[in-house]
């Protein structure tokens, strides 16, 4: 069984120091922090890491410890990315010695009531999409089997090719996912 490490939390002091390093301007510093955070969290997810947030906090901790040395570093993202790679290597080494049982994702939310709310929210969020986007997502998911392949080819011709369609669908799904999560939270409260 894996040893459960207590989840790290970035201290307020370290966070403040890190923000100051990013910019003297509060607004710019927060914006840059969010940009770096989003990119490095994606990096850890791409690397199959289980707790990307924790690894990001670890990365910032290390960077804060070295801020004196890298005060003049012109590209904070590049510096943080370099540290993040080391954090990932270390995590990968630790992971090798631990066997983890990956849960097969359940098709439905364990609570049927929440699942029902989620389906209602999908309906609502689809309504909030622009007519064009709603049409694309409906057609993309609208057919089965061979029809599905043909339909997607035709759809791809309209939006500018298969890769453009995939990227378009990715953006629409992202928008829908965020909307459904927020809508479900609202309905549960």
């Amino acid at each position: 069984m894996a040893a459960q490490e207590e989840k790290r939390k970035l201290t307020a002091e370290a966070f403040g120091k890190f923000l100051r390093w990013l910019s003297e301007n509060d607004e710019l510093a927060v914006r840059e922090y969010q940009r770096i955070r989003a990119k490095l969290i994606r990096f850890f997810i791409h690397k199959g890491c289980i707790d990307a947030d924790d690894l990001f906090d670890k990365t910032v901790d290390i960077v804060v410890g070295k801020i004196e040395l890298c005060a003049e570093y012109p590209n904070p993202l590049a510096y943080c990315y370099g540290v993040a790679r080391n954090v990932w290597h270390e995590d990968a080494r630790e992971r090798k010695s631990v066997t983890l049982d990956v849960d097969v994702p359940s098709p439905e939310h364990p609570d049927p009531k929440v699942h029902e709310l989620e389906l209602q929210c999908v309906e609502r969020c689809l309504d909030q999409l622009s007519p064009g986007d709603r049409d694309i997502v409906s057609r993309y998911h609208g057919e089965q089997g061979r029809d599905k392949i043909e339909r997607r080819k035709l759809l791809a011709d309209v939006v500018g090719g298969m890769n453009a369609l995939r990227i378009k669908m990715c953006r629409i799904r992202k928008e829908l996912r965020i909307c459904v999560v927020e809508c479900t939270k609202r309905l549960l409260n």
Partner: protein
Amino acid sequence: MNRNLPDRSLIREYLLGRLDTKEEEVELQLSQDIVFNDEVAEMVESIEEEIIEDFLDGTLDSADKDAVDRYFLRPPERREKLRFARLLRQHFEERHDFVERRFDAVLPPGVHVMPATLEIRSAVPWWSHFRTYGQLAVLILLSVGGLIYISSIRKYQARLEDQLAREQQHSASLVQEAKLVPSSMVPLTLVSDRSRGGGQIPEIEIKPITQRIIVEIALQSHSTGPFDIHLETTGEKGPTWSAHLLPLISSSGDARLMFDLPVQDLASNVYSFVVLSPLPGAGRPKHYDFRVRLAK
């Protein structure tokens, strides 16, 4: 613009964790591209979703499936993405099934004409109530007669009671079945445009529970599209809704447009879908009229 974008299959290998140990230089370069190039990052996200789609379709080979189970689905964020993709599929499958059930129930094969309004309640045959009442009447008559011929009637009565019970059970199951059909959607099929019309225009009733209209327009042309569609009504200056759609083409070459329309901005009025092909030589736009009646 996208000259330097990496190969999609390489990104797929990267996302399945196959470059981490074997091709470290390629992995290093790709990781950097993803972090510093937003266009590559977006492409990677779309391939991530493609892997999820393939996983759900069951089209991954065993090696890829194993990599997905052991590596790709380790982060909870990806498992959540997978769950959402399933949720979205479930939504569209239910809607697809609903449309199929409604159209299969009403239209004989090959016939494209459909009444303007389809009541959900119509799933229960209207005559089933008369049949039930008829059985009841017979039962009452026989009960009265039974006062005189009790001994000979008893068996007959028992049989009728059994028949009635089965009939009621059947009616109840039909009512139950009707309740299961989501009533938030109303189908509307339009086959004649204004130039061919002359008869009564189709009418649909929007109930308070109704959220969307599933529209099917049978096109006279066999064009593969695309088509611009606008919803217009009297008194409005511009279109109240518009879309750019491709038609569905049947194996016999018939073309039809299928889409859904939210009902929230509709009022009791006559509306018209204006269908126009932007292709050169496609001719004048066609108007498909229908009437909306808001139920109280």
